[in-house]
């Protein structure tokens, strides 16, 4: 055991902190700041700031330098994540592109795709969304139906995607489409890059994006409808009909990422809840104290687990289905933290600011209800752990 970082890693931390000290407006770090901004304006502020950060070398931490990355270590990536949360820096606006699309293109993209996609993505010149889920293909992704009919060197798209994060701001989508009907549903799926907007910012003909309001009232998701939308076949990632394998490769890149950012963010939420308990005079309530500590126990375990995974990655080991365990641990724990917030706040959890500002905690409480559904529901994750890790029969 050795939980210290190398000198180079710690130097990176110092450099990044200097940059954040100089470049992250003090105001942005205040509780509730982002909640009070107009969403579209907030998006633009974050888009620009993140591009500056990328130009300063603090993006694509682990990516090779040839792709505009920093060529850093997994530990640097962990340090980066930790400091971002510690500074309350705004989260990326291009999350799905950064996490999934770029690493996939690095591995199986054509040279043109590598050139055209990665750097513009890193600099937020193009915002990407992911088009996987459909109304009848949620947990059962292979049931997807968005039809792509061949027409010369183009496909013609008809159908719908749903639960598309970032749909309202995305310029392009990497999506799974059905290019042929086959008895084996997993065949006949193709991964395609689809322009949603024209260069002037207007939507491409036949593309319609509708916001999908969440139970919190926020608009982080959308539905995307396609009517006779033409997409060049050159926009395939991988091969026609190989979309399922491409998607599995793509989703595997989640596995490399530890849950240290979630740990840091949720641990701070618990601190905010402790502060709230103090302001309500409830910090000595023995039952609340037990619940606070239950959450801390699970979060600390999440941190140990992440350090373990980080070690595995640095040792070049395959993580297999470990990401399912990580997801279960952080998403279920975060829901418990939401319940803890409500128990501490009592009826104050219902009103964002009645003398006690609980707006951020309230938003997080509601959002946590979605975290056990998207990105593979807890039920799906438990199936994976049972079958792939424990080897229980289907």
């Amino acid at each position: 055991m050795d939980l210290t970082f190398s000198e180079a890693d710690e130097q990176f931390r110092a450099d990044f902190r200097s940059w954040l000290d100089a470049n992250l407006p003090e105001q942005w770090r205040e509780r509730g700041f982002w909640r009070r901004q107009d969403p579209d304006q907030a998006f633009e502020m974050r888009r620009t700031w993140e591009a500056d950060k990328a130009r300063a070398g603090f993006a694509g931490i682990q990516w090779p330098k040839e792709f505009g990355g920093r060529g850093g270590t997994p530990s640097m990536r962990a340090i980066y994540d930790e400091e971002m949360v510690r500074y309350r820096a705004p989260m990326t606006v291009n999350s799905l592109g950064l996490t999934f699309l770029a690493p996939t293109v690095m591995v199986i993209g054509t040279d043109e795709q590598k050139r055209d996609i990665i750097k513009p993505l890193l600099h937020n010149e193009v915002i990407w969304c992911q088009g996987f889920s459909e109304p009848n293909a949620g947990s059962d992704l292979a049931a997807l139906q968005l039809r792509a009919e061949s027409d010369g060197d183009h496909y013609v798209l008809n159908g719908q995607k749903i639960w598309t994060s970032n749909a309202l701001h995305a310029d392009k989508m990497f999506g799974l489409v059905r290019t042929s009907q086959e008895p084996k549903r997993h065949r006949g799926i193709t991964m395609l890059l689809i322009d949603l907007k024209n260069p002037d910012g207007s939507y491409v003909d036949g593309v319609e994006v509708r916001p999908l309001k969440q139970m919190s009232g926020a608009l982080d998701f959308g539905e995307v409808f396609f009517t006779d939308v033409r997409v060049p076949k050159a926009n395939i990632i991988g091969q026609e009909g190989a979309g399922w394998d491409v998607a599995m490769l793509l989703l595997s890149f989640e596995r490399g990422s530890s849950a240290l950012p979630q740990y840091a963010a949720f641990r701070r939420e618990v601190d905010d809840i402790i502060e709230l308990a103090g302001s309500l005079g409830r910090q000595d309530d023995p039952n609340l104290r037990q619940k606070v500590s239950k959450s801390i126990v699970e979060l600390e375990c999440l941190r140990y687990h992440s350090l373990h995974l980080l070690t595995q990655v640095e040792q070049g080991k395959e993580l297999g289905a470990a990401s399912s365990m990580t997801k279960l641990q952080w998403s279920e724990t975060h829901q418990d933290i939401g319940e803890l917030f409500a128990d501490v706040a009592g009826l104050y959890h219902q009103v964002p600011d009645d003398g006690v500002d609980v707006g951020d905690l309230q938003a997080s409480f509601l959002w946590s209800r979605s975290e056990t559904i998207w990105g593979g529901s807890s039920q799906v994750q438990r199936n994976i752990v049972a079958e792939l890790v424990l080897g229980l029969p289907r």
Partner: protein
Amino acid sequence: MYFALTDEQRALQATVREFLADRFPLTSVRALYDDPDNDGDPSELWKAVGEQGWLAVTIDEQYDGLGLGLLDAAVLARCWGEGCAPGPFLPTLVAAEAIRLGGSPDQKKSWLPRIAAGEVKLTLAATGRVNASNDTLSGTAHFVEYAHVADRIVVAADGGTLWLVDPAAGGVTVTRQDALDRSTRFATVTFDKAAGEQLSGQVLPDVADRAAVLYANDLAGIARIALSRTVDYDKTREQFGKPIGSFQALKHALADLHVATTMAEHSGWYAAHALDAHLPDAALSVSVAKAKCSDTARDVTAAMIQFHGGIGYTWEHDAHLFFKRAKREEYQYGDGTFHRERIARLAVDGR
């Protein structure tokens, strides 16, 4: 030995359910969600409450009431929960109990008949710190339901005294709060030497018990409808070529929730009857009911979201209406932890 609703109570239940389904379905509740600036008190619903005599159930016949019991009121409250129904109905029922139990004959005469007829709206302010001296009140009450439309607020002051206060009078400020659950409306009410008229009886504990039972039954209604709708959805929603309700992990979770909901339902009826019949375990049963119904409604409505998958956490789906109402009522008149500590006082300390 007869542990069930009477035919009359079942008929009342059927009437209210039918009325709400027909005249005030969830689409009407949704309208209150989409427009947070409205007053949350649909006039057509209040009108029906008055016409149907639903506020008259617990009021004595000499004050133009029906002279029925809390169990009958609980039947109404449960329907209200099933329908996520808005408006000052429950708050008025609770405040009316304060006057019925603790008011002077004059106070009863001037308020109970008008309540029974649905002519006035009341509410109870029992959360916060309000001090009474020389018949004036000062302080702040939080989470007062429908204070902005109330004709009178029954205010609990330090020491447990109860006061009738006109929110339109001098010294009273009503500040509306936008609550997560928009099937109610909360306000913070400040009193600055506001005039109050005291209710003579020391009935706050009784009133709080009766309120706890009514909200417990509202919660039991939420739990049942949330469970039924989830079961129905999971019977038809297909993934991997079969209904998701055929997956055993879901089945077992739903079975456990059905058992819990059934127990919650029993506890709601029992506690109402125990107060009506002055059973020796009435106090215990009130806390059992509020604890069980609070926890169960919370668990079932959370499961409703989870077991609907993606659509479950959208604004368009009804799940959040139930989830947010259950979460709000969980903390009204004592949450599970509060009532379990009270049970411990009864069972461990013997007092």
